[in-house]
């Protein structure tokens, strides 16, 4: 048997053998980041060993509610998406843009000394892969391209995972972003009770199985892997109708529902922080006391922040109503005109992490109803 599986093939490894894959990734210079339990949630952090994955954990998600609990199953990936997304690494919350230094009366603008690690993303779900692809369009496909994003993006290794279950807040099937991973990965895992079934997506992916005991996947295992995805798909309950977008939102900018949701929305910006496609940023300026050195730092921003729309004399969107409307119409309507796809991947994070449990699928349906004043 050849020592490495062929690309586009599917193999089976024992679960513990995943540690060998981690090892190979480390040796190849990748920094592994993946899900781990911290402070009662599954977050994305640097990991080295498979024991750091949330083995035996599962999650319950509902509008405004997230709880981890023991699943009783020896599963490494038996939960949905947590509050963080991979944009934490590709579009870091704080990034030095450049510094300005005064030398001999001249200002010199110097690029930052940021290091861009080679990330290996462990456990990427299908909706998250689509979200990365959506951010690619925003930051890499226009007249201007973001080199900071490009540097991080170009280097990533993607070890994707096919979801084994759906949370109540998931609606990837409506957005055609899952539950099964269909491309854009180096390796894609489906977890079965004893083994991982792994699709090889690239040469590099194949390389990472060096010295790992693997076998070609049997028809039986392929069938069981397919059933895992089918089960996850059946479990998706939430739906978002998309065929009339963007028009149905553009036509209802004065609908009374906006007033109603504004009585609940706190403008806390949680949704924009947990959303894997939200990309808004701002720039902070600092300088030393002698004004001979200054720095510019890019930081995450949110359209829910009052000053986001500040112009001379005031703010264009002074009310929560106007800011919620901006967020929802951008995410589900204007994004389509801007970038050719919806801005939403149906991951459900905004629904889970909204402190008052606002559900955008419910809001859009209400906005479609004929306005009764």
């Amino acid at each position: 048997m050849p020592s490495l599986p062929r690309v586009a093939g599917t193999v089976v490894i024992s679960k513990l053998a995943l540690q060998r894959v981690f090892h190979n990734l480390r040796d190849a210079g990748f920094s592994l980041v993946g899900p781990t339990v911290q402070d009662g949630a599954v977050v994305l952090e640097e990991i080295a060993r498979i024991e750091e994955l949330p083995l035996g954990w599962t999650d319950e998600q509902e509008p405004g509610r997230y709880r981890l609990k023991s699943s009783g199953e020896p599963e490494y990936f038996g939960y949905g998406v947590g509050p963080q997304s991979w944009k934490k690494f590709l579009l870091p919350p704080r990034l030095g843009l450049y510094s300005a230094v005064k030398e001999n009366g001249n200002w010199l603008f110097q690029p930052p000394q940021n290091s861009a690690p080679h990330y290996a993303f462990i456990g990427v779900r299908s909706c998250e892969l689509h979200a990365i692809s959506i951010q690619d369009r925003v930051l890499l496909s226009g007249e201007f391209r973001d080199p900071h994003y490009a540097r991080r993006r170009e280097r990533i290794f993607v070890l994707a995972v096919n979801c084994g279950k759906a949370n109540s807040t998931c609606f990837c099937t409506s957005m055609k972003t899952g539950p099964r991973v269909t491309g854009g990965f180096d390796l894609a895992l489906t977890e079965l009770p004893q083994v991982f079934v792994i699709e090889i997506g690239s040469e590099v992916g194949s390389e990472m199985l060096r010295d790992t005991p693997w076998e070609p996947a049997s028809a039986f295992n392929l069938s069981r892997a397919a059933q895992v995805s089918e089960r996850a798909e059946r479990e998706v309950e939430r739906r978002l109708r998309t065929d009339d977008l963007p028009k149905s939102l553009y036509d209802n900018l004065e609908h009374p529902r906006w007033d109603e949701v504004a009585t609940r929305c706190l403008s806390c910006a949680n949704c924009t922080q947990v959303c894997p496609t939200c990309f808004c940023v701002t720039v902070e300026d600092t300088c030393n006391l002698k004004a001979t050195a200054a720095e510019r730092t890019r930081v995450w921003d949110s359209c829910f922040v009052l000053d986001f729309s500040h112009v001379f004399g005031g703010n264009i969107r002074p009310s929560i109503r106007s800011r919620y409307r901006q967020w929802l119409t951008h995410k589900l309507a204007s994004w389509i005109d801007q970038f050719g796809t919806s801005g939403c991947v149906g991951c459900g994070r905004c629904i889970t992490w909204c402190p008052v449990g606002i559900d955008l699928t419910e809001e859009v349906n209400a906005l479609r109803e004929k306005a009764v004043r």
Partner: protein
Amino acid sequence: MSVAISPADVRMMRDPMLPNPAVIRAIKPEANGISTFSMEFVDADEAAAYRFQPGQFNMLYLPGFGEVAISLSSSPVEPRVMGHTVRVAGSVTRAISRLKVGDLVGVRGPYGSSWPLEKATDKSLVIVAGGIGLAPLRPVVLSILHQRDAFGRVVLLYGARTPGDLLYTGEFDQWQKGEIEVHVTVDLGDEHWRGDVGVVPQLFYRIRVDHRQTLVLTCGPEIMMRFVIYEALARRIPKDAIVLSMERNMKCAVGFCGHCQFGPTFICKQGPVLSFAAIEPFFGKEDF
């Protein structure tokens, strides 16, 4: 991965946020609290290569204070020295107002869309400006004067709050000599003012237009532009022959930060110059 960027591609990618140093060559007071700052890139090659179209803007960086988007108000025919007419509106513009000749700023640009002068050659052009809104339209006037025969009738309707707020008044004689009809008004006169008093849209009543071949270019406070559009529509000027320049909060000017969005339009990319026909569904929507 789903996007094809090669390592070589990435290495070559220039950061669009990085400015270049430029030196202030001249400062000219124009009106109450407003001056034009003319600057030139320090690097000789950058200075020689710089070009812009009327309506575009640069991002001006004051280290320690921040960046601000300011329209170019100088002549596109002489692009080497870039003129920016600046009104104090916040901490960055206040820092700019304290600059002296010889000081350095960071500049990157030009960005944004431009006034469709190519559509004006077979039409009458009506330029309607309010307050500092004349600044991004001055390059239009200068371009026309440079090539007067290429254009037909050109009218300027301009107004500001008080006589002390009017820009470029010293140039109006020259513009009129260049066969540009200039009509000026103020909202509130003073004891010396002998000109018109009234709001800018009212100046439409001083001219006659053939709606079939008139192009309107307008820039000023959004509420003024709403009423200018109203007057233009009342004269049956088609929606795609009414062009305006919009303003929104800008942090990057290259479509990454999300701040300047107006519906699906990024003011920094598809704007700031936009045809009314293109934005009609959203223009005038409250708090949008």
